[in-house]
């Protein structure tokens, strides 16, 4: 007699349509594709920079193609989505206890957002955007 444990059959490639929560999870998973591709693009940018002025400037020019613009918009949105969900999760992932009390989750997440905005503004300033 076979001793088969009770296992529910789960469709391996379409399980996430079963619940909106799974869909949100998967949409966050997909952001890694854009962020990963964007990081590869950054490595190519560094390569172009190391190749000298001409190669770097042709790299900058190549970035202005319509396909590149669309990719950058997608990568930016994906990065934003990753960042906000990551910061929202910090209050669950890193509980901070002071004495008997836990620091409220909103404080932990809020602190991350504040640091994020300050860092971003500093980088934009250093890059000469303002």
């Amino acid at each position: 007699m076979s001793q088969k444990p009770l296992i529910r059959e789960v469709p391996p490639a379409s399980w996430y349509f079963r619940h909106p929560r799974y869909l949100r999870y998967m949409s966050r998973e997909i952001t890694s594709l854009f962020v990963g591709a964007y990081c590869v693009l950054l490595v190519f940018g560094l390569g172009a920079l190391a190749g000298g002025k001409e190669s770097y400037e042709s790299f900058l020019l190549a970035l202005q193609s319509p396909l590149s613009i669309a990719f950058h918009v997608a990568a930016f949105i994906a990065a934003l989505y990753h960042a906000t969900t990551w910061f929202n999760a910090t209050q669950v992932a890193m509980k901070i206890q002071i004495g008997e009390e836990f620091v409220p989750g909103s404080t932990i997440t809020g602190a991350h957002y504040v640091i994020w905005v300050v860092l971003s503004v500093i980088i934009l300033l250093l890059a000469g955007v303002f």
Partner: protein
Amino acid sequence: MAQSKKSNKPVVWFPFAAGGTVIAFFIPVIALLTLMVALGKVPAGLTYAGLHGWLADCVLAKLAVLGIVALSLWSSAHRLRCTCFDFGLRIDTLVATVLYIAAMLGSIAAGVFLFRL
């Protein structure tokens, strides 16, 4: 699974978590900067003179950029591995090997480029 076998999870997981934080803090603003380039408005810091000036003589800046790129690559590789599995691609060893090697090669390339400046 044998009890004595040590898990390699912490080794993979730490750079993943660090990379997730680095991506969250830095990639949106960097993507915004290169989006400006894509739209034809090159910020002063991203022109050849500007960026080369930032990176060529400052080891600390090189290390910071290398850290951001390497950790982001590693974290993305790990997340892509999980994503492949979640989409039903059940060849985890192959996927993990390819992605981790790609992340390592990308990090090494970034390091070589940065210190060749």
